[in-house]
């Protein structure tokens, strides 16, 4: 049974992480959601529950967990995710390129908040895992044309957000 569990982890853990990251745009929270999702899978396996579609099950559980965490974080802080604090100035001087990169990443993260959760999931799979559109469609249970449309729309929206903040997508 442990081998079966490990095979599920090897096959689906990155997708689960992407889904969790897509909800909160916070890598640490996504790691926590990843661990908790697979612990729940293990508990179900120990109970002898037969999970017919593990990928869909895992992604559903990860989405719910990430949603719960995001809601509780919002109710606690009354604000957006702590990842946005990356933009706060450090006391130590950083090399210029690191500062620029951090600023750009902060702007991208802020722009991501304007997108829907599903668009963020698609972007995460596309750019962090280099998934092609059919792979994303399969992982998220969507039609490839829908993924293509959402991806194009999300990119356009992000580009617009960055341009509004003075970051030109053709230049850097």
């Amino acid at each position, binding site marked *: 049974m442990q081998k079966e569990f490990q095979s599920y982890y090897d096959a689906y853990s990155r997708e689960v992480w992407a889904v969790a990251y897509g909800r909160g745009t916070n*890598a640490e929270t996504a*790691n926590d959601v990843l661990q908790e999702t697979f612990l729940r899978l293990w508990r179900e396996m120990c109970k002898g529950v037969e999970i017919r579609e593990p990928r869909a099950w895992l992604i559903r559980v990860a989405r719910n967990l990430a949603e719960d965490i995001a809601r509780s974080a919002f109710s606690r802080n009354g604000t957006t995710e702590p990842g946005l604090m990356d933009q706060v100035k450090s006391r130590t001087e950083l090399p210029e390129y690191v500062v620029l990169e951090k600023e750009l990443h902060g702007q991208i993260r802020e722009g991501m908040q304007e997108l829907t959760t599903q668009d963020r999931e698609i972007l995460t799979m596309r750019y*962090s895992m280099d998934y092609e559109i059919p792979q994303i469609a399969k992982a998220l249970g969507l039609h490839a044309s829908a993924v293509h449309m959402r991806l194009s729309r999300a990119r356009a929206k992000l580009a617009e957000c*960055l341009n509004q903040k003075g970051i030109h997508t053709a230049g850097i």
Partner: protein
Amino acid sequence: MNELANEPLDEKLSEFFKSEFPKPFPAAPRVIMPARMARGASPKAARFALAACMLILACLAIFWPKNINNNNSSLRNGPASASDDKRHQLRFLNGKELPGNISPTNPK
């Protein structure tokens, strides 16, 4: 499909998302097999055993011969009277057999 790959926005997004992606990727949580499963008793086997027991009990309830008690009614109902009860008849006294049907309840 890779019309997306050559644009500057894609490079920025790729850099951003790859910086967010954990390196190395976290290992699977350490899980411990429950003791009952480590002994080889899987939940399916336990359920199968329970179902088999229930089936056996149901079969016994249905097919148990009902006339056993009828043939041996004295066992079920007890003796009709005290004189019928073999336990109350005293046939031997101090190793000698008593004549007739002398019993403590009917000494004559």
